[in-house]
């Protein structure tokens, strides 16, 4: 996994749940983070969209079920953007 990318995602997820970054790992998910409900999931999505200047489709949003899956998805999406 891209560790630089993981750190950026980790910091954003930590911010959304008002946790410190070291409380977030690759396996953090709605199952083990308190308060990660659908509204907070929307906040995570919006924060990531703003940070990485991306847009997630409804299908992608449904798949973003852990920090690891989120990092993989963003890596994939960033790779698909043609560089100038």
């Amino acid at each position, binding site marked *: 996994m891209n560790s630089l990318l993981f750190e950026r995602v980790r*910091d*954003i997820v930590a*911010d*959304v*749940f*008002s946790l410190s970054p070291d409380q977030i790992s690759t396996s953090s998910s709605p199952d083990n983070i308190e308060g990660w409900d659908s*509204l907070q999931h*929307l*906040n995570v999505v*919006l*924060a990531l*969209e*703003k*940070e990485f200047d991306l*847009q997630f*489709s*409804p299908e992608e*949003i449904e798949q973003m079920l852990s920090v690891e899956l989120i990092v993989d998805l963003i890596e994939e999406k960033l790779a698909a953007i043609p560089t100038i």
Partner: protein
Amino acid sequence: MPDPRNQRQQIENYITREEWFAARDALIALWQQQPSPATANFVIARFERLRERLPMTLCRLAILRSFTVEPLALLLRAGAFASGIDLTVQVGDFNAYPQEIFNPDSKLYRFSPDVVVLAIQTRDIAPELWHSFTSLSPDDVNAEVNRITASFNDWIEAFGKNSQAHLILHGLETPLFPAQGALDSQTAHSQATAIQTINRELQRLAGEHRGVYFLDYDAVVARFGRSRWHDERRWLTMRLPMTVDAFTELTGEWLRFLHPLTGRICKALVTDLDNTLWGGVIGEDGMEGIKLGAEYPGADFQSLQRAMLDLHRRGIILAVNSKNNEADALTAIETHPGMILRPAHFAALRINWQDKAQNLREIATELNIGLDAIAFIDDNPAECARARQELPEVTVIELPKDSKDYAATLRNCAVFERLTLSAEDRERGRHYAEQRQRAELQIGATSIEDFYRSLEQEVMIEPVTPMTLARTAQLTQKTNQFNLTTRRYSEQRIAEIAGNSEWRVYTASVKDRFGDHGLVGVMIAKAERNVWEIDAFLLSCRVIGRTVETALLSFLAEEARDNGARQLQGWFLPTKKNAPANSFYRDHAFQVIEETGDGKLYSVDLQLQQSQLACPEWIKLQVSAQTNKESLHLEQLTV
């Protein structure tokens, strides 16, 4: 751009070291660079630790809505904290606003909000107009427009019965593409026109109801860019109609309303000169060299001056704070053909080589306003940083690098927003500038009496009328310095006592050779057979110290005497702010006859002390023929 990680660490350090204002400024800078949902949480959490340490205005905001606003509410709270507003937000259930408004015991009213936003989308309240416009006949369209307008009217009326809160109505948006395409603009039967008609009606309703305001949502969408605003898929899956980039456009618009509604506003704008009002440095480039005119590049600076002139006409006082040779700068302001602002627009001028923070302090004193009512605009980041550090109460507006963005930066400042404008507000900028010219005259006069004489003051006294009722109540509520009792009255209360034969309520307007100050004084007295007691006696700080107060007292003494009274008396109740009125009764031969913990009751014998109670010879006192109570149409005063 600074590394956000370091910035965050720096903020933590400031908080640990209890440097509250430095922490605040760093949080504001972080927020301005990254207004994102993630940063919002960080900013809110830090401000929640600072809220007891900083001057914050509390405000309870309820949002009634037809779409997802929760992520926006988060950004709004962060933005509000950065503006000095500690916001508590309640979000209503989806499309539950009619119940919330009609039920006096609803969650909305139990929350006791200060401000309520009614945010409804066109497609939710007018689905026919939005989705199926081409299937509607002109009559159908009219019926829809009327139905929607009537609903809003019902909601506004019901809301007014149940709550004192301010109500902000979102207008309706027009679609990205009208249903009839280009034809829509060619026909009277137009989708855009139907929606705009509803908006005009909402604007009218807002104008007819006190405390109700219209937010032009369609204009907000247009300013951001209609095609970039919408996110249709997110609307369909999450009931969130806009992209995350559009959030700050809408939360920013909400803040434009919250600033004036919570009183977080600036009364004065203090401006730098070089590279702010004009391009270049007057002391080096000279009159021919500075950039200022209708063409590139001087036009950028004219745009900024035009924005300042608009603020001046909105009642915001302008002043200059510049490091320059005064003569050079004044020549440019007075004679440069490209200048839009002239000396008459500025209420105070500090053009010298001293510290700008010191100049700002002096300007605040001269204008008689608090530092927290001052905004300072400068292109130089070092001057801005210095002002922030020295005077944390002052709002500092740092101009962007490129002068093309100057005017928009100023026009975007929410501290200058006003939602209502009185005639007094419109004239205020001019009043203060005239005041400066008066002060210059005072320096020229050889004695204080000469100065008073040269002012050519005229004082007009009349009983309160329906026309002056609102201003009279406002003066009793706002005047702090020359106010002998600091008793606050509502319009209702003044109307009541003015209708009572034992009471007198007089207003005073003042003019002088420089202009008209308008209605600036109020006297309220209880008239008993032998004794008249002054219940309120106050004068706006604009005209104190020019013997107008003596003229008013002489009028009151005369009235009391004419009505057979022997004594005129009144309390002086000291407050933190009314020291200017402290010796007023004593200076006019009144004696203390009673003293309590709250203040002193003074009295004067109206037969003995005629000379000390005379009107100064340099004031022309005019008394309205209507001072006779019987001629007042009191029924008009019933509120």
